[in-house]
């Protein structure tokens, strides 16, 4: 019979088609009546009032937007490609900064039970804070909206990497550490050649979670501060109650998020040892 992979793919497609069909049926309303009175011509016809659009409308909008993704009609109206790239740029800067801080810190915390106990309350306190709560403080102190967005990404994507690194480092198999001691390896060599490779899969899991969070945060941050970016694009379309564009943006955000996650998944595979 068909392999598991093939069957799963078929089921996925079937679910998608069923969902789209259901949505199309629900959303296609009655065709708009032609305006008769002056009053009726001044308000939206039934077909024009804001409503959840059918998938066909979203698809035609997607085709239109993706055929010219880098257009530039002024600072407030740029193509979807440009918006996504700006957002990605901010994510990468914030994310890399977070890695630069979280991995060494996580390492030191993981290797020292004292530090782990001491830093734990701070980590637990700051971890659940929403990026939108950080934003006003960041804007006030930093006084620049782009730097504030990057800072907010940094402060929110720090925690998964930090915690996972600390956890990965602290749970390295005691046998490995004993072997290292037997071989009289210095602490730095132990850290780099024994602990790091052993903890790498856990660290990469943390990185994978963090990239997802970063991507989530940037959309929210941009809705708040504006500028060029996918979050701003969603907000701008939302102003016009253009739900087709909002749904299209959701799909694009999901696709980019999926891509980022896949990239990190591949990286994780490279460092994990499969017997």
């Amino acid at each position: 019979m068909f392999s598991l992979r093939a069957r799963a793919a078929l089921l996925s497609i079937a679910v998608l088609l069923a969902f789209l069909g259901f949505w199309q049926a629900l959303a296609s309303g009655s065709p708009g009546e032609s305006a008769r009175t002056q009053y009726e011509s001044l308000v939206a016809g039934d077909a024009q009032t804001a409503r959840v659009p059918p998938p066909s409308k979203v698809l035609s909008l997607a085709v239109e937007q993706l055929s010219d993704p880098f257009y530039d009609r002024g600072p407030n109206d740029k193509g979807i490609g440009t918006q996504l790239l700006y957002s990605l740029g901010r994510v990468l800067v914030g994310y890399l900064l977070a890695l630069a801080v979280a991995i060494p810190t996580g390492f030191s915390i993981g290797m020292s039970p004292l530090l782990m106990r001491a830093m734990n309350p701070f980590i637990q306190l700051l971890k659940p804070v929403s990026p939108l709560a950080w934003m006003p403080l960041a804007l006030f102190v930093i006084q620049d909206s782009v730097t504030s967005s990057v800072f907010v990404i940094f402060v929110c994507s720090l925690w998964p990497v930090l915690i996972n690194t600390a956890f990965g480092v602290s749970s390295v198999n005691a046998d490995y550490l004993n072997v290292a001691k037997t071989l009289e390896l210095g602490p730095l060599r132990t850290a780099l050649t024994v602990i790091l490779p052993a903890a790498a899969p856990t660290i990469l899991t943390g990185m994978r979670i963090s990239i997802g969070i970063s991507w989530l945060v940037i959309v929210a941050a941009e809705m708040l501060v504006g500028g060029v970016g996918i979050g701003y694009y969603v907000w701008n379309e939302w102003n016009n109650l253009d739900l087709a564009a909002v749904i299209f943006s959701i799909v694009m955000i999901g696709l980019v998020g999926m891509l980022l996650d896949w990239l990190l998944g591949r990286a994780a595979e490279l460092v994990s040892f499969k017997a």
Partner: protein
Amino acid sequence: MTTRTSHAPDETAESPLASEEARVDRAIEDAVVRAVLGGNDASRRAFIQRVGAATFYSALASVFPLAACKSAAKEELDKTAKGATAASTSKPLEKKDLKVGFVPITCATPIIMARPLGFYEKYGLNVDVIKTAGWAVARDKSLSKEYDASHMLTPMPLAITLGVGSTATPYLMPAVENINGQAITLDLKHKHKRNPKQWKGFKFAVPFDYSMHNFLLRYYVAEHGLDPDKDIQIRVLPPPEMVANLKAGNVDGFLAPDPFNQRAVYEKVGYIHLLTREIWDGHPCCAFAASAAFAKAMPNTFGALFKSIVDATHFSAKRENRKDIAKAIAPKNYLNQPETVVEQVLTGTFADGLGEVKTVPNRINFDPFPWHSMAVWILTQMKRWGYVKGEVDYKKIAEQVYIAAECGKYMKELGFSPPSTTYAKYTIMGKEFDPDRPEEYIASFPIKRS
């Protein structure tokens, strides 16, 4: 061709003096030499040949600033070619590329349309108008100098100068953007509750605490006997989100800037209960504001920007231009609303949400003059509701922030006639406001916080 010597003695007569600059140089030299040596061509030529061109010109330069004269003349021609008016040609701009923030509402029409309709360009500026997500962001980006100037609400420059709701930074309001142009819109499910006394427990949205919307709503419900802090709930929502919130039932109504009142009618979720011009005809709403530091550091740029806004505001006031303006500012880059919604707001022929088409030409109007009495009214309301506590020197602050004299000066330059005084009395819902007696005015209200 007469033999002419140039200030570069080795330049020969046959080198083509084709460039505009060289022609100008030539003309000036000619004029000066004729003035100095008199009208006879032959004797003039002979004299110069005898003395030697270089000697002659250096002698001339020592008594007459030839080089400065040439560069000044070229600058004048340059500016005139770019279409600048005579008054601005003599002042060089410190900064040509500016960023001006705006919130996508029709109040900002002059700021927005000045870009596609070329008003900024006319005065030598290259301005990018940047859409802003809300008033708090507009304030923050202005204070952090990301924006050189911004669209703000008329109370905001006063609040920022006083340090209420932000760090105290001296701000200037050179011009009012619009007068009238707001409305109270209610959910269609309340279409039989037209009497404000029935609004107990309602939730209303306003764009910002320091806004005419907040103060007018409070004034209106207080006149009908409701306490705005106890009997109704007023919450802050960015204008673009108000229609969606109304549709979702999160708010029962809002006093918002257009086009969101009209959009609510267009989407058939709300109806226009009252236009704010029926509360106070001619009330100010939005403003064009810049920091005092910017005006001081770059006075010529500030002047050019100020002038372009005043010019754009007068253009917007004319009825015959409204339809074209609606077309220019409706697209995604600016307001991002259906063109008919913007047109209904600007032309004043609109659907009211209850089946009638109304015609109110002064639904929104544009008049840049920043009356000091308007500032005093705003300050009295800020004190009335407890936003500002303690002693307030009303006239001093009004005159410091609302630079009426400068606006009047630019209005005159552009050929309009500014009012002769900066204080006027207003009648708001039948009650008179006298700017000379602010404390008595506040004391005369039964419902207040102070």
